[in-house]
């Protein structure tokens, strides 16, 4: 018997979950429609969307964990390397204020240099970019769930509000252009009046 990969298992549970939410939704929607009278009707019909988002969040979380593990691995490896350098450069425990000051200087300089080198590296930039990207995808799923809940309560979704913002922005631009044209015409008219008076 062939062994199943983690993806196959995830796909199986995704299918299983969608199958039952679909079936339950279909079986329940008709009698439910007879009894539901308020916004919860919309919420019930949208429950499938929420469960789909939750399954996808789970998938994204696995990817996110991969990059976040690499992120902390890079930080901790750099810490170990920097601490080794400090130990080599200042092996003795400081006993007076002067020694303490120079130990602090060495520690900070080495740690800052090593971490700056890490943050400046291709491997850090690439992993951090992917980590943020996965974090954004998780946020997107959360936004989608929020939208379903908002719609079920007859409130505008984020996309609908964005459309309004976009429209306001475009209108403002048009008004500004019109105001500039109007000002130019007024200026030209007043210049003409001055010339006529002369």
């Amino acid at each position, binding site marked *: 018997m062939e062994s199943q990969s983690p993806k196959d298992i995830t796909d199986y549970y995704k299918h299983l979950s969608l199958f039952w939410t679909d079936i339950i939704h279909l079986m329940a929607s008709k009698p439910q429609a007879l009894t539901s009278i308020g916004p919860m009707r919309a919420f019930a019909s949208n429950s499938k969307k929420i469960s789909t988002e939750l399954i996808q969040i789970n998938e994204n979380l696995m990817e996110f964990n991969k990059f976040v593990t690499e992120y902390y691995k890079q930080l901790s490896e750099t810490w170990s390397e920097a601490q080794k350098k400090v130990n080599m450069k200042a092996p003795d425990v*400081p*006993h*007076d*204020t002067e020694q*303490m000051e120079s130990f*602090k200087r060495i*520690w*900070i300089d080495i*740690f*800052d240099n090593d*971490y*700056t080198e890490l*943050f*400046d*590296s*291709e491997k*850090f*930039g*690439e992993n*951090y*970019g992917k980590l*943020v*990207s996965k974090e*954004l*995808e998780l*946020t*997107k799923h959360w*936004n989608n769930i929020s939208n379903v809940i908002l719609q079920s309560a007859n409130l505008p979704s984020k996309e609908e*509000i*964005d459309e309004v*913002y*976009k429209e*306001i*922005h475009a209108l*403002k*631009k048009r008004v*500004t252009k019109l105001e500039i044209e109007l000002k130019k015409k007024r200026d030209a008219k007043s210049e003409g009046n001055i010339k006529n008076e002369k």
Partner: protein
Amino acid sequence: MKNESKFDPKLIEEMIKFGKNIIDAPKLVSAPDEISLEVTPHDVVQEIDKTRLLHYRSLTEKQYKTPLLISYALINRYHILDIQPEKSWVRNLLLQGFDIYMLDWGSPTSMDKYLDFDDYVNGYLDSSVEFIKDEASTEKISLQGYCTGATIATAYITLHPESVKNYIATAPVIDGWRDTTVISNLAKHMDVDKMVEIIGNMPPEFMYYCFSVLKPFEQGIEKYVNFFKNIENKKFVDNFLRVEKWLGDTPPIPGALFRQWIKDIYQDNLLIQNKMYVGGSHIDLKKIDMPLFTQIAVGDHLVSPECSMPLHYAVGSEDKTLKMYPTGHVGMIASSLSQNKVLPELGKWLAERS
């Protein structure tokens, strides 16, 4: 048996004093929220959306004829240019006899996510320049851009060169590919389309993260150790809290503007290659033909000198000066070096052309 300690008693004494300073700190100093960052008196002469045009009140009997408008950066607020009387960029220029205006970009909200380069360059900055020209009855003004504010000012001047008499570029963000800072490394790997699509505006929290990767141990540990060590030094503490408050006040950056800034400057580097477009108009750096004064900080870890310097060589100006200072990004505008060297040199250059 003799109870001997290996440690110098002075060291123990210092540690006890340090602990005492931490306990006493709240009794000795104000909370950052109680500090006002408004220093030099000014009037708000124009407000458009969330932006404000500030006009500083004159501190001299006579002023040079050409007013100077400062286009501050998009990161943090304009207060650093007027952080306290002894280190105020604005106050120093006022005392040298210049008529100073400042453009405060304000704090954009979700509603402003569609504001783009065009709105900032041909909208807010252009409206401010036109207002000043009307108020001062002059055909041209001097323009100073700081950091990302200089990127906006540079784009503006190429499109409206007839309105600008002198251009001062202070640590301008120009050549993203040459930038050697960790900020540019993060910017180059960022999926900015996804960020803008999902979040809208660039959130301040992301900027705080970017600050935290800049010299994390000096800025994150030593700075605060020094603060508590010097808790009884009123002047030091006052300056520290003002700068800290300024650092902690980063407004979001409108999504569309942030997207174009990251793509055109850091990822595709279009500005220095004369391939950038703003509101459909071509940005050609050769069109900057007025006197140019470029100020660069050698120790700048936010905008590296290699990122700023190319402006000096790319413009069409014949009268141009490049000055390098042994300081950092903030040190160039708010330090004793800026008061004693950077500003006198700028004032002399500007006075000859105002």
